[in-house]
């Protein structure tokens, strides 16, 4: 089943077409990578899918529900979670509380429950905390649960952001350049985590990435964007050899010298 369907998705910023007529689908359980040179429009696609930016034309659908015009928090409730290219953790909050934020859309205590501290409210809070610790432990982060998030090293902050997104209990996770700023060792760990997202937690993953080694290693399929237009789609081997992709990244000189 296709979790995510994108049809003729288009975004215009004034006169600039950031994304044009994009079509792709993400099937349940797969890991799809969205790649392309800088400025190709990848993050814009994410922003449209998660409601942070409006869709100029075309449709985006999560299973059968149309995402056009839906506010971000509703989209999260549907089952799309995301991380950001430049990490957007809640800087002054602790790691644990950052993850707790993720649980917000899956819990129900409101003002009344907070004031009266009903048994249900306490139970909910406690359960969320326990689950948060579980998730953090899965990623080796439970040791820093009380640290203020902006004090953590970059690699750990990335991890926390992923855990926070997981707390929203998504069916599909949108990861925006998760390897950015990570060194080789951290990237290896990240790759293991992403693989586990699928194998252990049964999540579908849509990922934007520049690190080709990682992309080729963990993706089932790849969609390539250049100047907002899809120029190729297929498995890692096909994409690696695709001349249009090579040209987009390296320019035409390369092709000529190999002609």
């Amino acid at each position: 089943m296709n979790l995510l369907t994108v049809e003729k998705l288009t975004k215009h910023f004034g006169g600039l077409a950031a994304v044009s007529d994009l079509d792709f689908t993400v099937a349940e359980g797969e890991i799809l990578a969205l790649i392309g040179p800088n400025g190709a429009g990848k993050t814009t696609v994410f922003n449209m899918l998660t409601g942070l930016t409006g869709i100029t034309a075309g449709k985006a659908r999560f299973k059968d529900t149309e995402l056009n015009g839906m506010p971000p928090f509703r989209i999260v409730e549907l089952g799309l979670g995301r991380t950001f290219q430049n990490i957007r953790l809640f800087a002054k909050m602790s790691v644990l509380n950052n993850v707790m934020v993720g649980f917000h859309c899956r819990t129900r205590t409101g003002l009344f429950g907070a004031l009266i501290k009903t048994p249900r409210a306490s139970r909910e809070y406690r359960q969320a905390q326990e689950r948060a610790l579980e998730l953090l432990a899965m990623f080796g982060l439970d040791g820093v649960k009380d640290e203020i998030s902006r004090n953590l090293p970059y690699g750990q902050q990335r991890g926390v952001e992923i855990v926070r997104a997981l707390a929203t209990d998504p069916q599909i996770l949108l990861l925006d350049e998760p390897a950015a700023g990570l060194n080789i060792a951290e990237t290896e760990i990240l790759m293991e985590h992403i693989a586990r997202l699928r194998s252990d937690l049964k999540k579908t993953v849509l990922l934007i990435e520049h690190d080709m080694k990682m992309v080729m290693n963990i993706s089932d399929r790849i969609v390539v964007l250049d100047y907002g237009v899809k120029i190729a789609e297929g498995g890692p081997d096909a994409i690696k050899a695709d001349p249009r992709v090579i040209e987009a990244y390296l320019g035409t000189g390369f092709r000529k010298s190999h002609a």
Partner: protein
Amino acid sequence: MRLRWLYWLIGGIILFLIPHVISDEYWMHMIITTGMWMMLAVSMDLIYGCTGQLNLGHAAFAAVGAYITALLMLRLEWSYWLALPLSGLGAAAVSLLVGVPTMRLKGLYLGLATLGFSEIVRLTLLMWASVTRGPMGLPGIPLPTFGSFTFESKTSFYYMILALLLFTVFCVYRIIHSRVGIALMAIRDDEIAARAMGIDSSRYKILVFVVGTFFAGIAGSFYAVYVSFISPDSFKMLDSFMIFAMPILGGIGTLVGPLIGALILYVLPEATRVFAQYRMLWVGILLVVTMVTQPLGILGGLETLAGKFRRPKNGVKAE
């Protein structure tokens, strides 16, 4: 912290005994007034410290509460105990008039909107003379009664404001330490990220406005029966600035911060007999100095100090 309950008990006893120990009317008046400022500061910080919404017109909501109480008691001869909650609700309802249209404004623009609104309130109270008697104000507001007991002495008012303040602090505490509180803090740190994590930030921003102004209305209601006379000048724009400055000095987003701020900004000048005009001079200076040296306020400064002495965990040092 096994002995925590002991500290609470001692604190409670001290608070209880204060009016029996202090007989000076002037000091009791100061303490009672400080209680009101504390209520206003804490409730205001719920709006600013917790969601980052600049509210520079908080005193106006207290004015609304005061007038509702005064009018209900004077014109309709209702009991204070009915007027009190209605004042809070009335102020909260009025806050929707501000909160909803300005939902999309941020920072200074929101601040100016709240300022403008507080002016509108003041002008309305001034001009609607048929109801409010305009600049002449409403004198002779009756004292609250409970059965045969009349709240007349400073001691009785002290206990009342103490109860109201504790109620306010309790509610704010519960809110901060709950699912709602987590959402609020997220909104304050990064509203867009909060929305991306499933939080309906607009709803919470309004919620917090309504709750905060509810307590302001209650504080205003207390003021009305405490001094028995109110006028449109009872709650000035300058008061809103003072209320705003209090959590800033003490530490925004905390429970204790606004309380400390209220002590510093109100009690200190009073206690040192600083002339009223010069007080605002100090407020201005203190604001600048605080922002330039320790924007997180006194509490923030203490935390930073404490942090320097904390042992590093896992090789990661707390800043």
